[in-house]
């Protein structure tokens, strides 16, 4: 099946899960990655069982945050 992953169209085996795709794509620090499929965000605890479908568009987004609360002048 064809998937669009981070804007690139690639061929993958049918039945691929989000967790397996993360592994195949060698996503760094995957525990901090948010995944969207066709613009819908996938809960992190469902990556193992979420199966991708032909023509799905997948994005990997790193959580971004921080703050100055522990900085002292």
């Amino acid at each position: 099946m064809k998937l669009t992953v981070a804007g690139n169209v690639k061929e993958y085996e049918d039945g691929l899960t989000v967790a397996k795709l993360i592994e195949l794509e060698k996503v760094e620090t995957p525990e901090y990655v948010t995944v969207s499929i066709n613009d819908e965000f996938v809960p992190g605890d469902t990556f193992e069982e979420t199966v991708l479908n032909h023509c799905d568009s997948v994005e990997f987004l790193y959580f971004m945050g921080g703050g100055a609360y522990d900085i002292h002048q």
Partner: protein
Amino acid sequence: MSIYIKKSDFDTIAAHAAAELPNEACGLIAGRLDGEDRFIEKVYLLSNPDRSPEHFSIDPKEQLSAIKDMRQNGFVPLGNFHSHPSTPARPSEEDIRLAHDPKASYLILSLSEKEPVLKAFRIADTKVTQDSIKFIL
């Protein structure tokens, strides 16, 4: 590595940070790579859902929208920026703890001085590296 930013983009970030006071402001930066150097071509002014003077996070929906816009414009994601309303432009422990993308540039704009101060960092495995910022027209 150096980060090149147009003075107008710096002014845009500074204005966004001032408008969001007393809270921290945040956004994304995109552009192009040239060898080791990074050229910022577009800044994305995003909301801070935390609405806090001491914390920020980037809304994943806004992040996704920005990423698509970058792609359409032929830009690559370069990293993010956020403001420190009353503290220096250096990564806090929280900034380091939540820096999960080792390839990203993390820009911090301090508003604690008379004039805004912008600095750039990369953070990998809690190790912080400061990069130089060069202003261009």
